[in-house]
């Protein structure tokens, strides 16, 4: 018995190549998660001075979280996750990354996604994986490594699947009621198609799908516990997650984490080795470059420290430039963390320093590029501004809307919302430039991006933009007389009627192309009254 226990936990061997591939996929996704999914949620933390942690009896002793600290922690978390993915001192990065992820998750129940809890557990277990397991074996080194923590990763994932199966053991799941309520229109159409193919009733199809999900989850649990079943799981479990995506269920990046994890952790050793060779061939210049960097003579102690300091300063400066609240804190945290990760304590560390410094700088540049070049900052400020507006703090809402508009580049943003706020706060003159900017952006968007829609979705977007244009024209017609431009009002109303007609046509086209699920019919009906009223005066 004791032998079997020892063999199961302490004789568990995993190819280092497998772990390197998992590192690349899992931590790469984690960086995306930090920078694109979690970061826009940072303003929720501590909003209206309210918070409940995952451990409520600690609340009296915990400080209130705030966007100014959670945002920088998310930025740093992404940088560390990408550094792990790139193979930059994974264990040292994890020593910072795990407390950041687990700490922010534990700090607030506002984050209730169960897969975030799973990531917390996996990050904690990753701390116990030996440092050399994360890197590819050098020539002459053993290709596999024994790790009880990696076995526990498998068991943890297995337990999660099995408990998820237990959840489905109720009549309301097994008869398809719950699935029926989860799915929205498009997935429902997929299921209708499936019932057409099988010849079953819609109820029977839903029930069969529900039973299959439950059985699949139990099976997935078992597969992770029993190594000879891995290959079966590699084929089956990703299909289950693809099905979840096909049904359109909103679980952020969970399916992608699990598809990647299942494919890599459950693949046969031979397939992993073949894939690794293939990847190495594709990336051969990078591999050669990496080897050249790593195999150079170690730097002397003083220059090595200088390299670490310069890299830390550079990464910190990039983080300092991000357009988020707490950029100063982000700069300091990223700089400090980079120094901690790169600090060359011994000859081995000095030898790998050039590669590691390059890796962290690549991660920092990615941080800067996503912060400045994606729509994340716009979402971050827009949602925050909306909350402040609903709370009645118009001054703060206006300040945040202005930042959102600034982050939106040249795309339509929230100029009209800000104009309405400014008109209330500072009078009509304060709003004129904003309305004009909104009109310009909506019209440009209609004339360029949405000029020739071909899909139902694009027609819907065209309809919504035309309606937004009509809203802006309507507000301008109200505003202009107060700023001495009453003569333009008739023309504005004419343009508004045309925009409403355009919106209506686009919505109806959406409904024609997607009669089952297109929102166009409902949008056109909502528009009906307004368009009709405007159209009544037309020649």
């Amino acid at each position: 018995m004791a032998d079997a226990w020892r063999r199961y936990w302490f004789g568990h061997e995993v190819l280092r190549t497998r772990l390197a591939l998992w590192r690349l996929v899992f931590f790469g996704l984690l960086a995306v998660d930090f920078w694109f999914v979690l970061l826009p949620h940072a303003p929720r933390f501590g909003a209206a001075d309210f918070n409940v942690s995952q451990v409520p009896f600690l609340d009296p002793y915990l400080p209130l979280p705030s966007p100014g600290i959670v945002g920088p922690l998310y930025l740093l978390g992404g940088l560390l996750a990408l550094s792990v993915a790139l193979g930059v001192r994974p264990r040292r990065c994890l020593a910072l990354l795990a407390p950041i992820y687990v700490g922010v998750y534990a700090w607030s129940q506002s984050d209730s996604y169960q897969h975030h809890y799973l990531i917390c557990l996996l990050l904690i277990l990753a701390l116990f994986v030996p440092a050399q397991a994360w890197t590819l074996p050098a020539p002459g080194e053993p290709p596999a490594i024994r790790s009880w923590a990696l076995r526990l990763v498998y068991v943890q994932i297995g337990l999660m699947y099995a408990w998820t199966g237990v959840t489905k053991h109720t009549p309301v799941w097994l008869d398809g009621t719950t699935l029926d309520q989860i799915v929205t229109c498009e997935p429902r159409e997929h299921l209708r198609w499936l019932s057409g193919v099988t010849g079953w009733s819609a109820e029977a199809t839903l029930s069969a799908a529900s039973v299959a999900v439950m059985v699949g989850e139990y099976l997935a649990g078992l597969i992770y516990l029993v190594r000879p079943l891995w290959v079966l799981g590699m084929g089956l479990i990703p299909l289950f997650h693809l099905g979840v995506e096909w049904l359109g269920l909103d679980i952020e990046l969970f399916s992608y984490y699990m598809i990647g994890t299942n494919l890599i952790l459950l693949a046969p050793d031979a397939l992993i080795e073949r894939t690794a060779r293939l990847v190495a061939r594709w990336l051969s210049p990078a591999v050669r470059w990496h080897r050249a960097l790593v195999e150079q003579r170690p730097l002397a102690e003083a220059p090595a420290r200088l390299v670490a300091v310069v890299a830390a300063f550079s990464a910190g400066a990039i983080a300092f430039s991000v357009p988020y609240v707490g950029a100063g804190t982000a700069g300091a945290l990223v700089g400090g963390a980079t120094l901690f990760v790169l600090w060359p304590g011994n000859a081995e560390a000095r030898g790998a320093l050039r590669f590691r410094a390059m890796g962290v700088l690549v991660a920092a540049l990615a941080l800067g590029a996503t912060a400045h070049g994606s729509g994340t900052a716009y979402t971050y400020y827009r949602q925050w501004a909306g909350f402040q507006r609903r709370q009645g703090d118009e001054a703060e809402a206006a300040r945040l809307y202005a930042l959102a508009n600034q982050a939106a580049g040249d795309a339509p943003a929230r100029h009209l919302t800000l104009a309405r706020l400014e008109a209330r706060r500072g009078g009509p003159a304060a709003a004129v430039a904003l309305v004009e900017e909104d009109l310009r952006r909506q019209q440009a968007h209609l004339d360029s991006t949405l000029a020739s829609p071909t899909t139902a979705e694009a027609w819907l977007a065209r309809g919504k933009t035309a309606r937004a244009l009509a809203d802006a024209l309507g507000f301008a017609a109200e505003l202009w007389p107060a700023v001495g431009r009453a003569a333009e009002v008739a023309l504005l109303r004419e343009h508004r009627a045309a925009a409403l007609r355009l919106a209506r046509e686009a919505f109806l086209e959406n409904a024609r192309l997607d009669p089952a699920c297109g929102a166009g019919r409902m949008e056109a009906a909502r528009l009906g009254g307004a368009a009709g009223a405007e159209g009544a005066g037309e020649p």
Partner: protein
Amino acid sequence: MRSAFIVAWIGLQTALPLSYYVGDDAFDERFAWRMFSPVRMVTCQTRFIDATDGLQTTVRAAADVHEVWASLLTRARWDVIAGYARRYCGQRRAAGVVRPVLRVDVVCGNPDTLNRPLCRSALVDGDADGVPDAYREAAACAGLGPRACYHRDCGDESPAACRARLCQIRPVPLDLDLCESDDG
């Protein structure tokens, strides 16, 4: 030492989900791996009532907090209800109210009866035969006719009374004074 860690980890990962099934809070699924559970499908109406000095004033909690917390209130998350009560009672005491009283009326859909016809649709009885139209769906009645199926669920109760009993639950006792449990 490593074996002890493994045993502790697996023990915790067994005990935490198990505690959900043996506990009495069906609405807090955080550590139980209940993805896509029926509980997630129901919503609750959560109304805080300031009952200080025998008055009954509705407290607009959802407007006081971020939408994410308001959403957790509509999912009857007890920690959030208690957290809001702690804050509200503290504010009332700071405003000079010596003995604030706060109650909460939480009415949720019953996750165990989501599949009953009466709990899935509005109480419409178009043909006025005393049996809600939802019972015309034969599939949910497993071969029973509408009247027999209704009788199975409700006996002789009126649809409204049956719905309140069968389809709704109140996870928090209405007479609980949330400020009292917060007294320090």
